[in-house]
């Protein structure tokens, strides 16, 4: 009974990550790659993302502190970061990355700085949510196969 309740909670948590726009279809692709032989694939790749992307954020932060801004370099870094974020389905993060790149192309320093702060915030928010989700999922036991949100 308890387990059923927990699974339902996990399901709702997962659902809200999609409906609130934190995650997109790509996350479902990841879930579909999970199987009995690789039961933790999604959590593994998300963990890898957070490890790798923290370094990227630091690099970008440092580059932003230099003046004048090297927009080309910033755009390159962000291209990479956007790529990984996109690969794990981190929708809001990806959208901020795109915005940042547009400001880079326009040479808009203020825009870049502002967007970067938003990006960091989204990145951190998603991290917390995913950690909570994975933890609860582990406690609840294996879920059914991935289902598409309505």
């Amino acid at each position, binding site marked *: 009974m308890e387990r059923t309740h927990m699974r339902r909670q996990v399901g709702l948590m997962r659902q809200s990550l999609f409906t609130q726009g934190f995650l997109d279809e*790509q996350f479902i*692709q*990841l879930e*579909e*790659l999970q*199987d009995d032989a*690789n039961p933790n*694939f999604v959590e*593994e*790749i998300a963990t*890898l*993302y957070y490890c*790798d992307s923290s370094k990227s954020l630091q690099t970008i932060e440092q580059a932003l502190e230099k003046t004048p801004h090297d927009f080309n370099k910033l755009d390159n870094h962000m*291209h*990479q970061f*956007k*790529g*990984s974020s*996109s*690969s*794990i389905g981190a929708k809001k993060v990806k959208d901020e990355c795109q915005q940042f790149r547009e400001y880079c192309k326009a040479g808009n320093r203020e825009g870049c700085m502002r967007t970067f702060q938003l990006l960091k915030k989204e990145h951190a928010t998603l991290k917390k949510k995913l950690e909570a989700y994975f933890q609860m999922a582990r406690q609840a036991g294996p879920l059914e196969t991935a289902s598409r949100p309505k």
Partner: protein
Amino acid sequence: MGVGAAEAQFHVLAVDDSIIDRKLIERLLKTSSYQVTAVDSGSKALEFLGLNDQDDQGTIAEAPSVSLNNQHQDVDVNLIITDYCMPGMTGYDLLKKIKESKFLKDIPVVIMSSENEPSRINRCLEEGAEEFFLKPVKLSDVHKLRPHMMKGTSMEDEADIKGVEEIQSPEKTRTQYNGFDVVS
């Protein structure tokens, strides 16, 4: 040697500088039962393939029998899938080197990119890439790889040379081998 096809998996060499994307492509390929080698650069890919990337001739440098690493002798790659944007050697550069190489040019190459740029796509296809996948790569993309791997595979040659009692590939589309029917 009489190795049954059931044991011989297709081997894909994946090239991507992003650790996330390498993990993803590896999982995608393994899900489709391919053997995967993932490297993080074009030069590492060429090294794995036994081609010294400083030597464009592809003759002297490609002498697998004198390679210090015995593994290179048996390197059998059925398909190369590579990211386009990589520092140093791009996926396009890698594609060119492969197509210029006498030994490697028949290996099908697929390019992946996060940018949907028609000129980039055309350039790659003109240079000989079989497919161009937009990232993030999906399972449905990986399903498109199989026909490319079947083309020019040594399995086809073996079938001609020595008959195919030993080769039972469920994937082959040919319907008749020496009296044995193989249904795809």
